[in-house]
């Protein structure tokens, strides 16, 4: 069961009209290292985790990723909502308008639709947690690229918050991995 809260995890402030930035931001809405990939990856891998700590952590980080997915959608929605077809065409979003008007759609920055092929669930907790740590680093890098693609201080601020969360998640996944490896090798000291 999930409960939806009618608020964002972190505020979104879009100051400028910049439809191209909306297109770039879809990297984190429906790209390989997007918040969607993160949420589906963790909420899928949790079922076969061997420790209760790892089950809890994947559930809770997976849930936070859904909140991040909503933050990205909010930025894209606000950047596009007042655009005309002509403006979108001029700014290089004619292809987006043709298929989606001003809707938010889970594709990457080049328009390639999201696919489950972006994620894995191997049933091997060591392998899955390594994938998760790599995913957090890839998402951090993507946020760094996105921060360099805008000069809007509001968008930069929200992206910096999201970037920092990737760093924290990486740290927590590393701890969960250490814990599982200690249990597997019988070196757990209580």
């Amino acid at each position: 069961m999930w409960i939806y809260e009618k608020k964002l995890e972190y505020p979104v402030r879009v100051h400028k009209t910049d439809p191209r930035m909306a297109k770039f931001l879809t990297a984190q809405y429906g790209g390989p290292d997007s918040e969607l990939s993160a949420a589906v990856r963790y909420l899928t891998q949790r079922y076969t985790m061997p420790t209760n700590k790892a089950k809890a952590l994947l559930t809770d980080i997976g849930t936070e990723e859904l909140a991040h997915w909503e933050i990205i959608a909010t930025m894209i929605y606000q950047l596009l909502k007042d655009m005309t077809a002509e403006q979108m065409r001029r700014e290089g979003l004619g292809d987006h308008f043709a298929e989606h008007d001003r809707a938010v759609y889970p594709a990457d920055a080049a328009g390639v639709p999201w696919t489950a092929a972006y994620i894995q669930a191997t049933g091997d907790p060591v392998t899955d947690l390594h994938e998760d740590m790599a995913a957090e680093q890839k998402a951090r890098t993507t946020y760094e690229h996105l921060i360099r693609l805008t000069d809007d201080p509001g968008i930069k601020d929200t992206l910096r918050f999201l970037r920092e969360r990737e760093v924290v998640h990486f740290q927590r996944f590393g701890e969960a991995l250490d814990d599982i490896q200690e249990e597997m090798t019988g070196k757990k000291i209580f």
Partner: protein
Amino acid sequence: MDPKQAQLLREIQQLEFVAVELTLFLDTHPGEQEPLNDYNLVTNHLNQLKAHYEKMYGPLAVYGFSPMEYPWRWTDGPWPWETTHY
């Protein structure tokens, strides 16, 4: 959004962020007492602010999260993606 509502929501976001961060930390450090004390402190404060917010501005969640007054206000806007003050 009314500035008072925006301010209260900002405080709720700040406290809930602390709760999220402590949740993840406690998931990998379940035996630690001090972050658990912080978690309880922030949770009590957060619940007070949420109850106040819901009384003033309508529900933050449904599915039985908290009792509702007439009329049903869940369907009122703005939704989180519709305002830049969230």
